């Protein structure tokens, strides 16, 4: 690789060709502020916060997109640079709804941080430039869009259009009237938005947030007639610590359980058990399809963002989708039927709260199909990892200093297979562990399927089980899913079993996780670190296969009979519908 020598603020650095000034500056230990930049997602040089002086250049240049060249001399902190950045920031702030104290992103806002770092003490322009507040788009079950907070950095547009290939928001109009919006003034709920929430995860400010259901949850907790049950998804525990200053990749599972319990809920269960249940049902379905010439490839159905994407974009693949509900929906159904019966609780009184790394689950829980045999919704409220963290803070719970505690019985103990559900490839691996055992009739020891691990967007493997080759593919990120399905549609590729996760890297990087600013996200692979934590937790689990989970065994023997039974089908499976894409 060709190396380039340059000087940044007088510091000599040598970096590979193709590096940007921004990256080279990091190597030189020089910090350059950014706003629109998000590595690999949005590199458009639009916001002008990262401008620097380059010797010989007429105007200031955006460090985030400027490729280094031999002998380049860069100044990042001259008076001209500082002044330019500050005025640009003041201009952005002049167009921003500055009700920061009431903003959900207060203290986790990149704009606020910049204002403080660049020393903005007064803005001479009238707030919002004298414009009136625009209406907030809050009709979606998952995503709220507040145009008054939008700084037009376009990170959301890039991730929605280029990474997810969903493209329901884009830049509209031009000049001073430019906005990021949905076409024809539609609200997001009227578009083919899949609710993945990746736009929220990349938004530097409070222009995109989840539709909060905290109030509904508080109401239930405060209602003495309600029996409030929380379940937490596999990936939540690998992110929630970040909201309390813990390093990325921490595993505060026990503290999380304690914290939830202190919110005053009746039971804290683990969605991982739901995941184990999913593996039982889905694994059975796969074996059934493999052995009886069923529709292949079978595609996983755990990710509701992916499901809606498929309904809009690939209606011809709806029969390929596993009919299994997603783990938390299955778990909700079980709690309101099996558990309610066992404990003698009126299911009407149970209020099921799912804590999810995901915003699409909010929409999923509202689907008509997601009702259980008792006639109630499987899940009554879905809150994100961020909402749970906010509730913990609101209740004055000192998260980092909490003692650990265990999930409640009888549904608490999960297997390591359920734990890894949150990382891309995790569902596949969990399924293979069970399917391989079932097909061979053995208790296999070699259960780490490294071929399907890792953060790559698309992974394929051929797994030999009991003499049969099973062709598997794992994709995360909807753009990758689109490519894979198009290649299958075109007859260019063939698989037996595919895992699809809507979010790049899977649920650990879900749209409901704790938001890390661009200055972290750009340089640290959140997906890899959080996923690593989940594999570490898996290794520590006494049981690492779903079918060995005693709670699951009890559930089948006491209630459902066997996986794929009629009763199981009734409670734990669902169906899909074609949706308009335009």
């Amino acid at each position, binding site marked *: 690789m060709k190396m380039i020598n340059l000087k940044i603020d007088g510091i000599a650095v040598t970096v590979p060709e193709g590096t940007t000034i921004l990256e080279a500056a990091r190597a030189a230990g020089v910090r350059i502020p950014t706003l629109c930049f998000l590595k690999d997602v949005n590199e458009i040089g639009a916001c002008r916060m990262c401008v620097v002086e380059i010797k010989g250049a007429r105007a200031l240049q955006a460090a985030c997109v400027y490729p280094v060249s031999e002998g380049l001399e860069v100044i990042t902190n001259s008076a001209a640079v500082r002044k330019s950045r500050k005025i640009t920031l003041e201009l952005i702030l002049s167009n921003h709804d500055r009700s920061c104290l009431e903003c959900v992103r207060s203290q986790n806002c990149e704009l606020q941080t910049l204002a403080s770092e660049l020393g903005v003490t007064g803005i001479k322009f009238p707030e919002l430039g004298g414009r009136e507040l625009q209406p907030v788009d809050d009709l979606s079950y998952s995503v709220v869009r507040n145009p008054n907070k939008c700084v037009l950095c376009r990170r959301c547009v890039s991730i929605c*259009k280029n990474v997810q290939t*969903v*493209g*329901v*928001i*884009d*830049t*509209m*109009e*031009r000049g001073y009237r430019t906005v990021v919006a*949905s*076409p*024809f003034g539609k609200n997001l709920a009227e*578009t083919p938005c899949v609710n993945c929430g990746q736009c929220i995860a990349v938004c530097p400010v409070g222009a995109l947030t989840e539709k909060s259901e905290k109030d509904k949850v508080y109401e239930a907790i405060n209602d003495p007639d309600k029996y409030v049950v929380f379940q937490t998804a596999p990936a939540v525990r690998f992110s929630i610590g970040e909201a309390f200053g813990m390093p990325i990749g921490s595993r505060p599972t026990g503290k999380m359980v304690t914290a939830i319990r202190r919110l005053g809920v009746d039971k804290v269960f683990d969605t991982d058990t739901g995941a184990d249940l999913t593996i039982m049902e889905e694994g059975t379905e796969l074996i059934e399809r493999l052995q009886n010439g069923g529709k292949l490839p079978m595609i996983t159905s755990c990710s509701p963002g992916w499901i809606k994407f498929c309904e809009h974009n690939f209606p011809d693949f709806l029969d390929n989708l596993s009919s299994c509900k997603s783990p938390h929906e299955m778990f909700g159904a079980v709690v309101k039927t099996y558990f309610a019966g066992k404990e003698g609780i009126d299911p009407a009184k149970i209020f099921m709260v799912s804590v999810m790394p995901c915003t699409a689950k909010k929409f999923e829980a509202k689907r008509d199909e997601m009702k259980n045999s008792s006639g109630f919704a499987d899940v009554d409220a879905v809150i994100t990892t961020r909402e749970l963290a906010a509730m913990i803070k609101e209740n004055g719970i000192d998260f980092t200093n909490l003692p650990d505690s265990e999930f409640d019985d009888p549904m608490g103990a999960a297997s390591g297979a359920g734990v890894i559900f949150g990382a891309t490839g995790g569902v596949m691996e969990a399924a293979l562990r069970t399917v391989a055992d079932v097909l061979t009739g053995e208790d296999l020891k070699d259960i780490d399927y490294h071929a399907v691990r890792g953060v790559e967007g698309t992974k394929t493997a051929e797994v030999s089980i009991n003499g049969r080759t099973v062709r598997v593919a794992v994709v995360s990120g909807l753009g990758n899913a689109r490519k894979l399905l198009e290649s299958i549609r075109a007859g260019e590729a063939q698989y037996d079993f595919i895992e699809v996760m809507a979010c790049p890297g899977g649920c650990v990087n879900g749209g409901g996780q704790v938001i890390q600013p661009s200055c972290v996200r750009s340089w640290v692979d959140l997906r890899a670190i959080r996923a690593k934590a989940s594999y570490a937790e898996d290794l520590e689990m006494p049981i690492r296969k779903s079918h060995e989970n005693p709670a699951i065994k009890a559930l089948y023997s006491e209630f459902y009979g066997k996986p794929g039974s009629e009763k199981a089908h009734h409670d734990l499976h669902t169906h899909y519908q074609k949706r308009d*894409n*335009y």
Partner: protein
Amino acid sequence: MSGFSENDEKYQKLLEIIETNKNVRGSLIRVLHDSQEVYGYLPIEVQKVIAEGLGVPLAEVYGVVTFYAQFSVKPKGDYRVSVCLGTACYVKGSDKLLERLEEELGVSVGDCTADGRFSIEACRCIGACGLAPVFTINKDVYGKKEPDDIPGILAKYRD
């Protein structure tokens, strides 16, 4: 309102336009031009057909449509009055022509009269600076006119 139908000749033309252009790189703007020629403007139904036909998200199509001044999502009048606000015309008082036109027609820039006869728009230089100030009504160009000439000119199109 838009009178969009999948059973008329216009729709057939729209499909043809998409068909001829769908494999041409970067043809969205051309398709929009040609489709606007057929429909007079670009209502949501037309944009949906284009988006689907070219395999582009509707939001992107709409983003392009609203970026360029030539595209309209609102219907235009039978007579499109367009006043040049280029520098040469402005210096020679085209803003006064515009004001008078708005007054005479009772609508403002960008809108269409209730009977659908006239719409007014402001345009950038049409390159007829020698005749400044200039306005056009459909393909007719009126140069070197004063506000007081306007009622007479409009009268020609009224019946």
